[in-house]
């Protein structure tokens, strides 16, 4: 049977089956099992109403349990067994093996980089785009163009950006836009300005910003009104941001010190460490539209009086944005940030299609795929899936807690 026909039959059977199930099970419940007539009519109606929700929920619960619930536990079990020894229980041996692999730590490091850079950049760009497009007439049109990459598959986006990063041997015409631009820098004043001064300025601003955030986190300790847990959290996160700031400052000297290969076409995806950022650009490009749409809705929801009051008090547009608007949409920013974080944790297609983890660009999801389907090592593959699950679970718990709060 041709697949298209099979598909059609499946739609009919699937949809018809579902509808039929719901219809006939309800009918059976009302007419045969607990008929709403005869001597026990009242009791029967109550009983039928107790059973009915489970009829409605039945297929969904079975599908969810089988396709999402059961695999969590089965994966956990598989990560503790060895396939080559007839699924014998091997304790944490798979995890030990995995922790001993440099490729795993490379994937962890890269994932952490992705986790910091992609949500931050997407949210920042999204916020910028939302704020700017809300103020102009053709904003809706601009928005839909920036939003468009959301519809493009990761694989399609990978092809698009492979063309951007394409490199031809020196002497040939460059057909990748990045190399075409790069070749314009031949070591003169322009190169100095754009390749040395600009990164230094960006790094310095970044370092200052992170240090300022760290200071904001640490400052309330002096007043001493928090309890001990909050204090500890403040100290830890404050110290982390100071540390990031120091790293950024150290990188300034690296930027000034390195001799850039001006005039040489670069195959960007093979430059270790920096190629991670070239891959991240793809995801940032896709996710910015998402952040923009959500944040723009939140910006519109801000009560106008607060902005008006600020204007009357003489605030400039930047103060209005950072001191009035951003604090009010903070909850939405957190939601956007966590949603993008979830996407990042599962990022697979981009790395798979563009570098397949070569040149030190491995990430956890692709590492797992490698282990499961290339090395056929289900134990270590499952162990790395569990690591992904562990990284996701704080968000999972937070979401559930929020949902329960809302229900009350």
């Amino acid at each position, binding site marked *: 049977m041709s697949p*298209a026909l099979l*598909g059609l039959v499946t*739609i009919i059977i*699937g*949809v018809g089956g*579902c509808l039929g199930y719901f219809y006939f099970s*309800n009918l059976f419940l009302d007419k045969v099992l607990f008929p709403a007539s005869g001597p026990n009519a009242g009791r029967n109606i109550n009983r039928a109403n107790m059973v009915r*929700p*489970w009829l*409605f*929920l039945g297929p*969904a619960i079975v*599908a969810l349990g*089988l*396709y*999402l619930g059961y*695999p969590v536990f*089965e*994966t956990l079990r*598989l990560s503790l067994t060895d396939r080559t020894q007839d699924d014998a229980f091997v304790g944490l041996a798979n995890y030990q093996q995995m922790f001993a692999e440099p490729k795993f730590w490379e994937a962890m490091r890269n994932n952490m980089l992705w986790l910091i850079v992609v949500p931050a950049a997407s949210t920042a760009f999204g916020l910028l*785009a939302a704020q700017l497009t809300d*103020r*102009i007439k053709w*904003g809706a049109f*601009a928005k*839909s163009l920036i939003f*468009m990459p959301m519809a493009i*598959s*990761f*694989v399609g986006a990978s*092809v*698009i950006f*492979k*063309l*951007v990063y394409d490199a*031809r041997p020196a002497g040939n015409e460059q*057909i*990748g836009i990045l190399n075409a631009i790069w070749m314009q820098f031949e070591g003169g004043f322009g190169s100095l300005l754009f390749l040395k001064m600009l990164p230094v300025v960006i790094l310095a601003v970044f370092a200052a910003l992170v240090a300022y955030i760290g200071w904001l986190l640490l400052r309330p300790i002096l007043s001493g009104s928090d309890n001990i847990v909050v204090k500890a959290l403040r100290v830890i996160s404050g110290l982390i941001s100071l540390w990031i700031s120091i790293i950024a400052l150290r990188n300034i000297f690296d930027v000034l010190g390195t001799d850039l290969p001006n005039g040489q076409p670069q195959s960007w995806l093979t430059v270790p460490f920096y190629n991670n950022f070239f891959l991240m650009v793809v995801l940032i490009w896709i996710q910015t539209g998402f952040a923009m749409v*959500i944040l723009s809705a939140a910006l519109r929801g801000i009560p106008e009086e607060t902005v*008006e009051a600020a*204007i*009357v008090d003489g605030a400039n547009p930047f103060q*209005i944005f950072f001191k009035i608007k951003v604090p009010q949409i903070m909850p939405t920013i957190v*939601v956007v940030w966590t949603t993008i974080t979830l996407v990042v*944790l*599962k990022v*697979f297609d981009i790395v798979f299609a563009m570098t397949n983890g070569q040149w030190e660009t491995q990430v956890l999801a692709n590492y797992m795929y490698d282990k*499961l*389907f290339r090395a056929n090592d*289900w134990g270590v*593959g499952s162990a790395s*899936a569990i690591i*992904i699950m562990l990284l*996701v679970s704080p968000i*999972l718990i937070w979401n*559930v807690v*929020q*949902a*329960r709060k809302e*229900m009350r």
Partner: protein
Amino acid sequence: MDNIAGRKSGLSWAVNLSVVALVLLWLFPTVGLLVSSFRTADQISASGWWKALFPSEQVVQLRTGGADMAKQEGDLWVVEGNLLEDSEEGPAPGAEITRFGVSSKAVDAFAVGETTTFAKDSKTFTMDAAGNYRFTTTKELKKRGQRVFITATLPPEFTLANYDQVLLSGNSNDSMTKAFLNTLTVTIPATIIPIVIAAFAAYALAWMEFPGRALLIAAIVGLLVVPLQLALIPLLKLHLNIGIGKGYLGVWLAHTGFGLPLAIYLLRNYMSGLPRDIIENAKVDGATDFQIFTKIILPLSFPALASFAIFQFLWTWNDLLVAKVFLIDSTGNTTVMTNQIVELLGTRGGNWEILATAAFVSISVPLLVFFAMQRYLVRGLLAGSVK
């Protein structure tokens, strides 16, 4: 809003310009792929796609007429004609030729009007800017004519040949037709079935009272973020054990399972916001839950159903991982477009004309859906993530 204090915002220009810059930056990569898909392989490797939109100076290799056009004048064989008019390939007549050459080592050695003597002085060649040439040789001509390189300024030129190759040629390596149909076969049932299942469940969670309801909702919120990577091996094992194996049925079930949490969550949020009066009135009038659901809730929930349908459609159409694990077997007969493109990246990494076209065929459908139903997509996003 910023004009309330009675002053025109001086930032207006800056804002407009920044948005233009941002939009261009975001569009640029996609446009590059689109333009490349309409160019030949030679054009793509000769110049960046951003130059394809303007007339450009190009070097083209052509041939003079061969033995059949030669006339004997004394002891010379002479071929005369017009390079642009005689050859089917190359630039259209009317292009202005600036330089020419007869050796691949010096393709632009001579300006038009000059005469070159080569092959140990046995041959001469000259041509004018319109392509009229005169070629003489002391030896009898071979069947094929002399190779000539011309440098000419050519108008932008685009071709549909790549789409022909990718969609209609039937070449098994490049063809996207089969992959296109396969993708469609995966996508449509995988979009419709979860909607039906989720709609009933969402109704129960929104409007029916039963013990454990809050717990179930919390569980669904939790399942919303469970990475599907966890499900790959256990489910593949399950499918192999119960005899589904790798195939369409497996991938439909998998997509249904993975799509359900979002579907139930979105639909429940929407349905619980519907006015209580309607439902209670219907109950008073003696409608059963099944009737309320099909006659009242479903029609009213259309926006939410559309939102989720778009999500699920985009997600299944663009998916690579689930298809690779649950669908594509070693024969490759059931390959989907995303997988086909990844394979093309491996086998034809340098053939940008094929890659760009294949990728564009694959992203054109989601783009159409996106622009046609953007309103529902935005609404779904807002319902799905902002609380």
